[in-house]
């Protein structure tokens, strides 16, 4: 402890800018354990499920079981990205905790004291979250491709890296997971409560969207294709799966239309979160 409190050396303090806020949010994201854990689990789930899907496909081919025609026509990239559904549950948790962790600990008051306009802080968090989940998911997809290579070889198929559909399925996985994490982040910013927000988003993905899609009422048939995960998920489905899950009586979205609808949900929720956070007491 010293008895002088002023800086020993000239201490340049610069105005707050979005770039500096991004830098700060990146430090915050990488220095909590939740980030390391959830991202590691994302990679493990993706690679593990790719290996399992490949292995089970090989087993089905080798056995005398009548293999469904659908399975035989499956795009090879769908074996690689087969873990997306479970991986999204993990990135949803990360997205929520990125903001609710600050509310739970009181950190949000330090954040808003440093960035009192608040919106740059929330947008900075969302941007850093998106980029980090995107990069991690891309690594997870690459690793999934590597671990599924032996099984693809046994099936005499390969992932055609020159095909646009391959890139849609594999790149779309990273894009979808990153976008879902920001959707969860926006809900977390609105609800400000970890368990509540996780329950809402995972409940939406696992329960509400599935249940609504299966209720044979016209209104639900019309609405359910536009729900966030049902719409966005089309980006990472191959042609066979797309036709399989499409209800002929309901609106049918192309993969990119579906993703655009998901982005619309994120814009709506994040916009509401920004508006509400500016007005609320921290």
């Amino acid at each position: 402890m010293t008895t002088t409190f002023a800086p020993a050396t000239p201490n340049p303090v610069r105005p707050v800018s979005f770039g500096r806020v991004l830098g700060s949010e990146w430090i915050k994201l990488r220095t909590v354990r939740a980030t390391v854990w959830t991202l590691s689990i994302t990679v493990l789930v993706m690679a593990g499920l790719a290996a399992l899907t490949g292995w089970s496909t090989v087993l089905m081919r080798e056995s005398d079981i009548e293999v469904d025609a659908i399975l035989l026509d499956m795009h090879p990239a769908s074996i690689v990205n087969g873990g997306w559904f479970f991986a999204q549950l993990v990135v949803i948790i990360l997205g929520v905790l990125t903001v609710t962790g600050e509310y739970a600990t009181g950190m949000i008051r330090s954040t808003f004291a440093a960035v009192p306009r608040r919106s740059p802080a929330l947008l900075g968090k969302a941007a850093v979250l998106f980029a980090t989940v995107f990069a991690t998911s891309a690594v997870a997809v690459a690793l999934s491709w590597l671990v599924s290579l032996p099984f693809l070889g046994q099936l005499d198929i390969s992932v055609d890296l020159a095909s646009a559909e391959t890139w849609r399925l594999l790149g779309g996985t990273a894009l979808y997971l990153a976008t879902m994490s920001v959707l969860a982040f926006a809900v977390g910013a609105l609800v400000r409560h970890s368990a509540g927000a996780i329950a809402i988003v995972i409940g939406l993905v696992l329960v509400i969207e599935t249940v609504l899609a299966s209720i044979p009422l016209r209104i639900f048939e019309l609405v359910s294709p536009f729900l966030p995960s049902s719409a966005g998920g089309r980006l990472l489905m191959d042609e066979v799966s797309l036709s399989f899950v499409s209800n002929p009586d309901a609106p049918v979205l192309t993969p990119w239309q579906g993703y655009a609808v998901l982005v619309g949900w994120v814009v709506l929720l994040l916009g509401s979160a920004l508006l509400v956070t500016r007005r609320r007491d921290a």
Partner: protein
Amino acid sequence: MIEATNLTKRYGKKTAVDDVTFTVEPGRVTGFLGPNGAGKSTTMRMIVGLDRPTAGRVRVNGRAYAEHRAPLAEVGTLLDAKAVHTGRTAYNHLLAMAATHGISKKRVAEVIEMTGLESVAGKRVGGFSLGMGQRLGIAAALLGDPQTLILDEPVNGLDPEGVLWVRNLVRFLASQGRTVLLSSHLMSEMAQTADHIIVLGRGKVIADAPVGEIVARAAGGAVVVRSPQAAALEEALRAASAAVTQTESDRLEVTGVPAERIGEIAAGAGIVLHELTPTNGSLESAYMQLTADEVEYHSENPLGHVAQEQGALR
């Protein structure tokens, strides 16, 4: 410089801060006093834009806090020792705060050294004692070398050495011409640290004056007199319209006349005095009188009432 004008904060029907107007001047330590629930913390949160005023406004160094381009260089704030993510280390917390204002790692290391956090800087904040949390909060407040400091209960949880350190720190910062506003429930601490005191009670300013003036305003001011002829002295003093209380057989407490006059009366009556001691009103008694009607959580039980007020003063 902090200027609050008609600042009001209501939570539903409850008014936490009620039309408060005050100015915190640079170059001195201003103490913020008040019982629990008097609105001190709410007022401090409104100053830095964390709570939105229901009415009125508050400016720091001439502008609303959020309008400053580099707020951490204007105002350093310790509002809550636990306004830190518990899973992050102290060093990384300060680094993230510093990054928003382009403040160097060197300055981060400096504030860690100043606050004596070197040995725990690499540890996660979740395991910190209250005192270490306070030091970290103060370190964060100092990062931007701000002109104005707002410290809510900075000595809460500190050991005696830490209390002394905070006292020296805030006095030093004020001596450099900075504006310092701190709240504390420790009256004795406030008497030694603050130059000026703003007393809040039930959301209103009930006193805003230099420490000396607040103490002098305290009725107290009794004179203790010991005399082997206490009864005769009491009679003579009452004749001079003084209020006299006999506390022991040879000891009187006199109010209403100054010590000099008591000496003259005794001499005139040929009464021997063994002691003649003026007692100053303490900040405690001044504060108790000022806030007697303003304590929010009165208990039904009169004994509980006393305990409650003492609790509020802790």
